[in-house]
């Protein structure tokens, strides 16, 4: 019996989102990446079906499903488009989760309901940035703050109607909710290697007033909020990498059964077989790690370490799988007419998104040495 046991509901979700991904998303997946277009129609459909608010409690208009279900959905979407998988993951992990976990009732009523109604939320987080005096001004004005500066890699930045922003320096470390229509905000599009359709943006703040009322939770230190969001999101981001690796394996397997060299199909060469089995072994290992971590979260067990291990392993595994897939394609793997170069570009970003493997390994080592 497999260690991964999806219940009835989860099996149905897997079948339905797989059908959606192959029918609706696959025909546009390559195009949205090449053009760097945020897939509004696809995301609107996913909102209507409930995937964008999957973990939000029903009382705020969400579906109130577990993390395993979210990972199943994100894995299936990411097999076709990691950009779309990332948009769904960000709305649930970086937007809904901190609001659910740390927001007071007023914040939940206001923002979770908006989120379930179809508004996209951006997430801005670079806690380790140096706050230079000329770039970042942080002044206390009756418990409110004025903030100027820049942040790169704003997740879901393109279409978000509001953002969750961490402000941190030596005196302050808090999360705030800000509206996109604030005139103190201006956006630019970073030229990225991958996740080109995920709507990731850079933002400039020009004396943005952060009011006390928009603080996510003034009682809990920002560092703790960040750690909890990171633990939770580590699992979901792992499932994006897992989906990407599966896409690499599927593409490489198919190609190896079609491509002939020296009058033989290349899948008959043992060095090709070795690369295919290497990818397969890693994917099966990764899948166990992802769903074990998700299951621990869903069953209220301590999951931080499992989440960190899954994230590091899956992030690295997706990159190596994509590289092997490119190798199997040979020169064709390097051109944009074939999908595996996209899988490589996307998997590399996913390996680093929000926290690099080295940062997460420090968390793992801390746990080992405890």
């Amino acid at each position: 019996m497999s260690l991964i046991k999806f219940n009835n509901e989860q099996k149905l979700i897997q079948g339905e989102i797989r059908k959606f991904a192959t029918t609706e998303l696959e025909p546009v997946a390559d195009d949205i990446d090449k053009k760097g277009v945020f897939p509004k129609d696809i995301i609107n459909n996913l909102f209507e079906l409930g995937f964008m608010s999957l973990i939000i409690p029903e009382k705020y208009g969400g579906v109130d499903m577990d993390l395993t279900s979210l990972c199943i959905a994100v894995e299936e979407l990411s097999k076709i488009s990691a950009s779309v998988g990332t948009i769904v993951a960000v709305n649930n992990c970086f937007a809904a989760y901190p609001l659910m976990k740390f927001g007071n009732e007023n914040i939940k009523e206001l923002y979770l309901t908006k989120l379930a109604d179809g508004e996209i939320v951006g997430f801005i987080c670079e806690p380790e940035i140096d706050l230079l005096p000329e770039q970042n001004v942080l002044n206390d004005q009756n418990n409110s703050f004025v903030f100027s500066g820049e942040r790169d890699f704003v997740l879901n930045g393109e279409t978000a109607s509001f953002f969750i922003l961490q402000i941190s320096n030596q005196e302050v470390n808090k999360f705030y909710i800000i509206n996109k229509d604030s005139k103190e905000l201006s956006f630019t599009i970073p030229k990225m290697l991958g996740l080109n359709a995920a709507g990731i943006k850079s933002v400039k703040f020009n004396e943005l007033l952060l009011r006390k009322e928009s603080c996510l939770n003034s009682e809990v230190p920002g560092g703790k909020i960040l750690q909890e969001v990171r633990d939770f999101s580590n699992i979901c981001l792992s499932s994006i990498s897992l989906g990407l690796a599966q896409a690499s394996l599927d593409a490489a397997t198919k190609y190896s059964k079609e491509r002939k060299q020296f009058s033989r199909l290349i899948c008959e060469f043992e060095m090709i077989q070795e690369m295919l089995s290497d990818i397969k072994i890693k994917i099966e290992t990764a899948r166990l790690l992802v769903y074990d971590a998700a299951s621990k979260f869903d069953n209220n067990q301590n999951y931080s370490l499992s989440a960190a291990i899954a994230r590091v392993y899956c992030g690295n595994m997706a990159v190596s799988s994509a590289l092997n897939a490119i190798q199997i394609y040979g020169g064709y793997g390097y051109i944009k007419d074939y999908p595996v170069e996209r899988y490589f570009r996307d998997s590399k970003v996913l390996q680093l998104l929000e926290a690099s493997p080295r940062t997460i390994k420090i968390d793992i080592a801390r746990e080992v040495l405890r």
Partner: protein
Amino acid sequence: MDIIVCIKRVPQTAEAEVTIDSSGKDIEKDRLSFDINESDSYALEEAVILKEKFGGTITVISVGYQDTEDTLRIALAKGADNAIRVKAEDFEHIDGYKTSQILKSVIEKESYDLIFAGCIATDDAYSQVGVTLAELLNIPHASLVINIDTSENRADVNRELEEGLMGHLDISLPALFTIQTGINEPRYASLIAIRRAAKKEIKVIGQEEINKDNLLLNTEIEELFIPPKTKEVEILTGSPAESASKLAEIFKEKGLI
């Protein structure tokens, strides 16, 4: 308006590599994914559209193994009210005719105004269950239906014929229609609907309720095989000009130009 929709769970073979199993009478299915038969999903959607317009209930019925319950649950999530699985494992070999007899014995105990089935199953492509079932139930039917306009006791339907022709029929209800793909746009099940459907009970019927001694089989698969190669493909090599020249020679040889 009470509607019964007959659905079938079939392997998805459009993109897959299909191989014949050791019996020589079936395909290897262990690596294939399964889903509702394509035209059955249009039949279900058409039923949901009519239910949204006129009210009533939808009952989905399938003759299949345990896994078929997943397909029935998705149908429940998309708008069906009741689901019945007839245990295929109780009836050994099943062909289109036997399936129709099994369905007849279940459906004749239900009340209905309309019965929908897909026009063809993508696995065996018999296209016979719907129309045979209508004959066994002694109700009128129309196949390859591409449009339905119903009133209380009658339905105007268009049938899609060859060469772009359409046939228009006025049929009294109750009736059975086999539904052609493209009649509508099947919806996806929302997560909320999946949650509700996952908890719904599926009625399971077997040989205790259906006397299998009375069921007849009128076809048996002798063999499945890959057709032998009849023509060789020739790939022309060389520059575009050289290839074009060779192609022109071949056309001339064959008397095509």
